């Protein structure tokens, strides 16, 4: 079983409509790199200068990676990485 990345609806036009993409990798960084390898047009949407854009939050099994090890957070088969727009609330 691979790691899954949940694709938010605004980006699904770049994944051929897929809501979830299976990726490989043992860290969030590696998993997202594999996602971008499969769907290169996602790269500039998610990253700027090698860093995740400031208005995107990344979650592993519903926990914000900024409270874990950020992009170095370990991921294992069966876990879900969610990419979620950060501009909400207040």
């Amino acid at each position, binding site marked *: 079983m691979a790691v899954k990345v949940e694709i*938010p609806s605004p980006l699904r036009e770049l994944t051929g409509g897929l809501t979830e993409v299976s990726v490989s990798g043992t860290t969030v960084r590696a998993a997202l790199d594999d996602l971008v390898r499969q769907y290169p047009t996602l790269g500039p949407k998610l990253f700027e200068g090698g860093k995740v854009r400031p*208005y995107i939050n990344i979650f592993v099994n519903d926990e914000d990676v900024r409270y874990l090890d950020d992009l170095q957070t370990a991921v294992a088969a069966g876990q879900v990485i969610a990419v979620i727009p950060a501009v909400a609330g*207040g």
Partner: protein
Amino acid sequence: MPALDFSTGLRCRVCGKLYPKDAINFCKDDFGPLEVDYDYPAIARTITRAKVEKRPKTMWRYRELLPITGEPTVGPQVGGTPLVRGDRLADALGVRNLWIKNDAVNFPTLSFKDRVVSVALSKAREFGMKTVGCASTGNLANSVAANGAAAGLETYILIPASLERSKILGTSVFGSNVVAVDGTYDEVNRLCTQIALKYGWGFVNVNLRPYYAEGSKTFGYEIAEDLGWRFPQHVVCPMAGGALIGKIHKAFGELNSVGLVTQPNTCKMYGAQATGCNPISDAVKTNKERHKPVRKPDTICKSLAIGDPADGYFAAKLIRETGGWAEDVTDEEIIEGISLLARTEGIFAETAGGATVAVARKLIEQGRLPRGEEIVLCITGNGLKTLDALYEAIEAPVQIKPALAEFESLFAGREPIAA
């Protein structure tokens, strides 16, 4: 009122890309926040002080500067709250010129959130939405529930399970689908984003957020109009998501742009937070460009308990650029702030108001707020909603039997009137 919509679209605050007026809150290129864009020269050609002053005293008298197409269909009576001269509080704080903008008496749910909800739900109806919702620390929950009920909309309201009982009750009473989530506000907020993206419902602070946030500007227009169409030198504002402080300053700038106020907008903006959840004031005080999120907020001031504020970056930047400052205060200081405002001005504010008063006091003592200049304190919610924070702190009344002698034993030495 003429049905005039001067908004031209939604503009990304990061890259400037313009989007059509849809239910969307972020840029598809960089996920930056979208903000309503207006044709200010066109507004300037039509709006006048006389026109505004002739309209009913509600937030909708500034109709041209709000982003709806038809007449407001939700909350047409919202706003128009008092700007109170605070001389007794000024004496207590050792300043000369103090005002209190009192949204603790905003209609219908006693907080400034009725302003944002009135715009967001009017817009939701324009979009043909039947189901709306929000993530909330309490005040927004009350407002979406009440205004949604009055508009006949189905409402889904998600809150942290740890909210004050009165804020939960004051939401459920309106017949909303209230969901108490076992988690922090930021977790509730993330869940709402997932729900909004999946179901397409109108979440006022998610996909309707650009419109919603504009409602806060009316807090600023009212301050300026009630001061006689001019700006104060200093505004102290509570910060949760960090949007209100920015919208008050934006409102002042717009009054310049459309010619209603000619005085340049040099108002300094000051932000108030609780020490138990202070990502924005910490960013200002430690000169961080971007705030460090607070994972587990710990304060009685639940309405400000947003650990990862969406407008944190913009609020800190604004505070720096205007020459203001930010501070945070302990729970004890918040309760002292509530008491001080109540005992000097007869205004019962919720915990966020206590934080605002206490931060103002701290900034005055630090010399950051000048004692001789004009200061406006923003009171955004009502104390009756946060009684939980006060039961232990406020002394219970003395209890006596219904006998004159018992009363007199309490207040011995008072002279009776002459027989």
